[in-house]
């Protein structure tokens, strides 16, 4: 990336593309509403009543969540790659997804004997997610410090333990298995405005904070000695950036479950395009995350399957997490092959 101008042009182009995907997303579904009609509905709320209901009440929350969750995961991954000094780090390594899912499984499985899930579930997931992140941080810190390599290793181990516990709890109860599965894979199905209000505060605080951390992130990308010589307290900076990555991922998991790959691909793509400067990588990773997730959710929405569950009489769309994994895997393999000799 050579000039500031071309970077700004790239960001503007990305925003326009996001907007186009967003409008397309609002039009897509059982009833197709053409883009011009969508724009008409968006600009003038008083047009035909049915289209207005479909766009604003049924489809808008999911499309907004696609943008929010994509951006949060993209930025989270970019921050984490800085903290862990590793291009293969992704938001799941914070322990936030596995922690959130374990909480969800315990809750849905009725281990605690609580009443039906209802609207309480997202809050349970949120608590579990934050607890997972704090657990990873606690286990990996030694004398108050985090070492990037030790952080990765302990994160992988803690994640494995939380994942195993989830599997054990799931075996104990086949209760609401479908519901649990959609958290494991990650999905934006049937999301409503309440879900948007749940994710929005986290995004509104953590996305700007994460973007503002770019300068500290740049110093963290140097070797430890150089970073300290520039006057950055390394350990507090690492904890803060890890915390931001965790909060972003937790906000995403709370509303969508563990959507894989976005948080890995977005920062890698951003680096491939814009180089290493975090002042460019962080916003670009967030934007690419938005684009990737919206695009994957468009695909997810376009294909539906009828689950072989006797009680289920209607077809459901593919979970966006599965689409993301299938479409993202080839790109990921390419990135791994390119980054190793």
């Amino acid at each position: 990336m050579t000039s500031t101008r071309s970077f700004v042009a790239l960001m503007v182009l990305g925003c326009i593309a996001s907007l186009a995907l967003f409008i397309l997303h609002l039009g897509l579904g059982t009833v197709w509403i053409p883009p011009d009609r969508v724009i008409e509905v968006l600009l003038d709320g008083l047009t035909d009543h049915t289209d207005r209901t479909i766009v604003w009440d049924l489809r808008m929350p999911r499309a907004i969540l696609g943008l929010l969750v994509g951006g949060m995961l993209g930025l989270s991954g970019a921050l984490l790659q800085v903290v862990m000094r590793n291009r293969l780090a992704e938001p799941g390594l914070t322990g936030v997804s596995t922690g959130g899912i374990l909480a969800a499984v315990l809750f849905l499985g009725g281990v605690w004997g609580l009443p039906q899930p209802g609207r309480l579930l997202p809050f349970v997931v949120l608590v579990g997610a934050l607890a997972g992140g704090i657990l990873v941080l606690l286990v990996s810190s030694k004398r108050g410090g985090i070492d990037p390599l030790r952080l990765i290793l302990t994160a992988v181990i803690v994640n494995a333990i939380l994942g195993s516990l989830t599997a054990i709890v799931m075996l104990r109860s086949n209760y609401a298995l479908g519901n649990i599965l959609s958290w494991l894979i990650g999905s934006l199905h049937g999301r409503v405005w309440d879900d948007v209000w749940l994710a929005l505060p986290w995004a509104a605080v953590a996305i700007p904070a994460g973007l503002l951390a770019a300068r500290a992130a740049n110093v963290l990308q140097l070797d430890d000695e150089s970073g300290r010589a520039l006057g950055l307290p390394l350990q507090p900076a690492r904890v803060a950036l890890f915390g931001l990555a965790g909060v972003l991922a937790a906000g995403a998991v709370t509303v969508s479950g563990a959507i894989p790959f976005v948080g890995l691909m977005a920062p890698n793509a951003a680096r491939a395009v814009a180089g290493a400067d975090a002042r460019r990588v962080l916003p670009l990773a967030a934007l690419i995350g938005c684009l990737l997730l919206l695009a994957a959710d468009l695909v997810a929405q376009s294909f539906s399957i009828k689950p072989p569950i006797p009680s289920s009489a209607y077809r459901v769309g593919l979970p966006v997490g599965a689409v993301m994994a299938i479409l993202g895997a080839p790109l990921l393999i390419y990135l791994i092959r390119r980054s190793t000799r």
Partner: protein
Amino acid sequence: MNDVEPIRLEQVSAGYGRRMVLEGLDLRLQQGTITAIVGPNGSGKSTVIRAMSRLLPARSGVVFLDGRDIRNFGSRNIARLVSVLPQSPSSPPGLTVRELVELGRFPHTGLFGRHGAEGKLAVESALTLTGLSGFAERPLDELSGGERQRAWIALALAQGANTLLLDEPTTFLDVRHQFEVLDLVASLCASGDMTVVLVLHDLLHAANYADRVVVVDSGRIVADGAPSAVLNVELMRTVFGVAAKIFTDPESGRMVCLPIGPDRS
């Protein structure tokens, strides 16, 4: 000349874990001079630089920065007064020279600030001084070793500090680039504002570029003074354990230190 030394060490001891590397070191830097710190491997050369910049806090004794106890400074305030270039610095792949040099402004702009006009000027002049203006937009990993080292020196210059501590800046460079880097350092000092400390392996460089040579052995200063006064056959034998010839090349007027082999006496 300013009577306050940029850096003064008083009875400084420092080390890692239980191992003390420096023991009761006294050292005053003179403003506007180049000081070379030499000594065998493991003698504590690098630790002197780390203690001077509080990268390694002194265990006992006091480090004074501009006449004030360094413990009373914030990290960013130290970074505004002292630039340190570590022995083997590393940057993320793809980072351009300009992006690296801009990091030198970090101590001035803080976590969330932006570069002001002053910062932009500091970055440009650092690039010009190091002869890197033409390379500014190139990724660091595409440059030669010498150019890369100059980029790191540019980062240190952009910091705007008056004291520059360089830890073995020539170690991984070929002979030509070693001279290039040292000439650059000498030119920085020519104005008299900049105080430079070089940790060097090569005694030849120490002899020909430094105003003063400090010889460190086992965490103590064993010799300190003008190169011609300090570097002699006896020192080579006792500190470095080699038999050597030291003479001045009549043509270039440069001091030559020729190690013959391990000292067997």
